[in-house]
């Protein structure tokens, strides 16, 4: 373990951390802008040109708000809730391959923090952990509405994780690898993207990703109309800010995951035919990857301002009675097609 290696990784980690936070920050603005445009208005445009200082103002405001911890709340857990939420949201980005490799001098820098051979499982575990933040927050608040929100979050997360995992199994049957780096590297060019072989699996994964991020139409944990505000009713100041931040980071990470798993990650059409040097391919690849992520984030917002919220029983019906059977059918179908394909 040489020093340069550690420096390289620390720089990469900090860079990704900063990018994640900035994107999460500006997602809040983008959300409001998208909402505005879809409702025939401008959205926030007073703070700076086009409102680009709005997230800074909001963040600054959060820090100056009074911090309230309810008298009967469990203090430790109450503080741990948002902490866990934000940490689990952030660590997901560790295994995502942001690009190929950069060659500077004689150093080859991999644009991925770590390539563990169970990357997909790791992501899955992190996603599963994230519900703890919400659960702890809702439980520790000692508030019925918060608890209801937390219970909903837990049950929703568990039900949709099954379908998500099953849709991933079909994908893994195609890729034959659990390493995200390997999966992305396989999808070279345009025709090899996994979306072409796993369209149904992608659809299931997409729906589950919405549910895991508790985004509309599955935002039952924080539905304002029924539960006042859901699991974060008792939170104020930056703790509330962290919860909201965690949600946007989730959105970013799951967008990155979906682009990496199904839309070829950093791969773009004609990447080797254009005769570019490896460094240029990597740089363009990173930009393409981020373009895909932004497209997904936009899609998240687009859906949010289109669909109403599911009722709780509808949510459960969809998860258990439709998505899980569909995902299993997808696995069987994938298996049959793979065998037929191999025989030919």
């Amino acid at each position, binding site marked *: 373990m040489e020093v340069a290696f550690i420096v390289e990784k620390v720089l990469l980690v900090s860079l990704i951390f900063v990018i994640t936070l900035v994107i999460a920050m500006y997602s809040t603005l983008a959300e409001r802008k*998208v909402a505005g*445009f*879809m*409702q*025939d*208005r*401008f959205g926030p*445009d007073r703070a700076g040109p086009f409102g680009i200082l709005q997230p800074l103002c909001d963040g600054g405001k959060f820090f100056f708000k009074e911090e309230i911890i309810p008298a009967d709340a469990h203090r430790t857990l109450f503080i741990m809730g948002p902490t866990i939420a934000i940490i689990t949201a952030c660590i997901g980005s560790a295994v995502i391959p942001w690009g190929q490799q950069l060659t500077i001098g004689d150093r080859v820098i991999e644009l991925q923090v770590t390539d563990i051979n169970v990357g997909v499982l790791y992501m899955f575990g992190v996603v599963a952990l994230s519900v703890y933040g919400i659960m702890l927050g809702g439980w520790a608040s000692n508030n019925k509405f918060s608890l209801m929100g937390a219970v909903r979050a837990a049950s929703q997360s568990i039900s949709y994780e099954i379908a998500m995992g099953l849709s991933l199994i079909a994908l893994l049957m195609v890729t034959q690898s659990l390493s995200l780096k390997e999966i992305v590297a396989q999808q070279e060019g345009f025709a090899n993207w996994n979306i072409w072989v796993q369209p149904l699996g992608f659809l299931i994964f997409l729906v589950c990703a919405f549910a895991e991020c508790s985004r509309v139409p599955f935002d039952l944990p924080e539905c304002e109309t029924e539960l006042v505000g859901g699991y974060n009713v008792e939170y104020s100041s930056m703790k509330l800010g962290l919860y909201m931040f965690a949600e946007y980071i989730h959105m970013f990470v799951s967008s990155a995951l979906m682009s990496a798993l199904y839309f070829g990650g950093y791969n773009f059409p004609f990447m080797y035919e254009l005769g570019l040097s490896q460094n240029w391919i990597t740089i363009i690849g990173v930009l393409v990857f981020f373009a895909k992520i932004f497209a997904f984030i936009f899609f998240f917002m*687009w*859906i949010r*301002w*289109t*669909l109403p919220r599911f009722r709780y029983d509808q949510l459960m019906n969809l998860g258990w009675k*439709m998505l899980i059977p569909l995902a299993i059918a997808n696995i069987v179908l994938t298996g049959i097609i793979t065998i037929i394909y191999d025989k030919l």
Partner: protein
Amino acid sequence: MQSLSNRKKVLEQRPMNFWERIYLPAIFKGLTITIKHFFKRIPTVRYPEVQRPYSKNFRGQHSLKRDEQGRERCTACGLCALSCPAEAISMISAERQKGEENLYREEKYAAVYEINMLRCIFCGLCEEACPKEAIYLDGPHVTADYLRKDFIYGKDKLVEPRFDYKNQQEPTA
């Protein structure tokens, strides 16, 4: 009961068919609607920078007019106060003294003239009642304020500034 308008429709409640049950077609329909709105022209007027033109007969804040020689036209007859349905106008009249001919057109003038902008309903009846063409509601919006007393506008706010006919401009001070 029999429908009189013939517009009555009996809603038919049937179980959802397959395409409705998988939601996707409906979701795509919704998505196209929202994306159409995304690219639509936005009717918002960015208010402080852009102001919509008022209609010609917009009734805003009152102004007490002067005549060609810059004298106040108001003679404090009280017809505006009498016509006011909201009892917003009050005044105290005074007699014009020698040497004040350049200030007031008539022998009697309003020493105090007050309009309570919280009472005023901007109906324009004072304008119609005035025999001297001394009051018009041709100003801008009456702006917000913090205290009730500040909504009682006196002559300092109501009388229009003197117009310098020789130089065709408003006096500087």
